[in-house]
């Protein structure tokens, strides 16, 4: 084996691992420039927002509703091992939902439901030459296809997260009341939620709302061949977007913890 074989292999691995983030950064910067240069028409933006919200609302409600209910069951079970005081279960659920599970689980649902849709749509346009037809019609595909989806997804991630947190807390409160006789007044306590928690939730929403459509669109633009290529693009989209959400969750939570103590 040559002496340089291992460093070359490591270098090749690093370069290949760095390629997707580089492509996301380029696409994000092009989308941001497109949004500033020529904001998308209102009807196209509203249609994208409706599409994203409509596609995800039931999915998010069911997932977060069950998550809220399960969290209360688990919380009560753990609390009862120490001392049978359930007064903090609601406050803890609201805190955790606001800063962590609300934005992150909602984003994972959006990555699954909306991200794959974006990747499949753009991917099928690539393999059927529609993207090239757009270019030859003097239209920038990033400006036309990606920028409105980024803005719409950013807005709808906030909206869906707020909705998801409300559903999760409501489902948790219902379980707490029906199964463990925790009163609503006790359950709906905001005493564990402060500005830092709200900021953490908001920052995560913004990061996920931008990252998901960019990653999905980039996967779509890489599609090649035929329907198999579109299938790969959607798979790559959901894997990369989910991984990015979890990674950003860790980074944002760590930074906010370091800043706020």
């Amino acid at each position, binding site marked *: 084996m040559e002496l340089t074989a291992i460093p070359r292999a490591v270098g090749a691995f690093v370069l290949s691992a760095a390629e997707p983030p580089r492509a996301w950064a380029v696409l994000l910067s092009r989308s941001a420039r497109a949004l500033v240069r020529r904001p998308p028409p209102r009807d196209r933006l509203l249609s994208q927002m409706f599409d994203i919200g409509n596609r995800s609302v039931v999915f998010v409600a069911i997932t977060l509703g069950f998550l809220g209910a399960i969290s209360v069951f688990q919380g009560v079970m753990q609390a009862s091992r120490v001392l049978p005081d359930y007064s903090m279960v609601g406050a803890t659920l609201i805190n955790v939902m606001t800063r962590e599970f609300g934005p992150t689980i909602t984003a994972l649902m959006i990555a699954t439901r909306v991200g794959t849709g974006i990747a499949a749509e753009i991917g099928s346009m690539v393999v*059927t030459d*529609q993207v090239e037809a757009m270019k*030859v019609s003097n239209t920038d595909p990033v400006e036309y296809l990606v920028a409105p989806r980024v803005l719409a997804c950013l807005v709808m991630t906030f909206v869906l997260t707020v909705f998801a947190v409300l559903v999760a807390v409501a489902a948790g409160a219902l379980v707490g009341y029906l199964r463990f006789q925790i009163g609503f007044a006790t359950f709906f306590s905001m005493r564990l939620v402060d500005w830092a928690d709200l900021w953490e939730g908001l920052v995560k929403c913004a990061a996920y709302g931008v990252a998901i459509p960019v990653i999905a669109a980039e996967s779509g633009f890489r599609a090649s061949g035929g329907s198999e290529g579109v299938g790969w693009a959607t798979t790559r989209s959901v894997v990369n977007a989910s991984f990015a959400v979890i990674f950003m969750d860790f980074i944002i939570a760590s930074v906010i913890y370091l800043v706020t103590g």
Partner: protein
Amino acid sequence: MTFAAETRNVRKVLSGTPVLDGCDLALEAGRLHGLVGAGSSGKTLVLKTLATLLPPDSGDVVLFGEAADFGDVGRLRTVRARIGMQFQNVALFDFLDVAGNVAFPLVNGDVPVPPGEVASRVESALAAVGLAGAGGLAPHELSGGMQRRVAIARAAVTRAALMVFDDPTGGLDPVTSSRIFGLIADVQAASGSTVVLASHDTDRLARVCHLFHVVDRGRIAFTGTLPDGLAHADPAVRRLLGGDA
């Protein structure tokens, strides 16, 4: 003699295979050019290179007298405003209806056309391809021939100086094919644009084209009139133009 578009010694390698290998093509302005070649000879790649969609690895693409700069997006957009293209697999936007597809280059270009003018130009483009009144239909509601006619209308609606048609009659019956070739010839005659038309259907091409170019293994093996091509020394050229090998 003025050329609207040229490829000069263009070379392009895809997946390690040279698909364009010293391709020299010159399209005389205001003429209807037929591009002929065997399957996988590089016709589509030549057309995409002319439409500035495929940057060559080496060589020059000269459009309207200026070498295209594939690194300068602004200048590319200026050049593309003068090009219309119909793609081999039609490439109609499935999220728009027929009228929306034809209007797309007018509405979304760098200099959008006023809405009133868009409607009249779309209407006349659809009427020209025999689809007046079909503007509200979705692309999937149309037959293959109708979809190709919509694609022709979209390529022609900007009255581009260079129009590129890639296999506009692929998979169509002889009657529809003759009609589509006739439509393209009418569009060219009315606009005076430079038109290049790739097809395997040399019989019908012969009825409408002024000049022929034969693509063989990524390079132009012949340029000239059909009689000259049929008398060419290279049997491959004669065979591709429909003559005896």
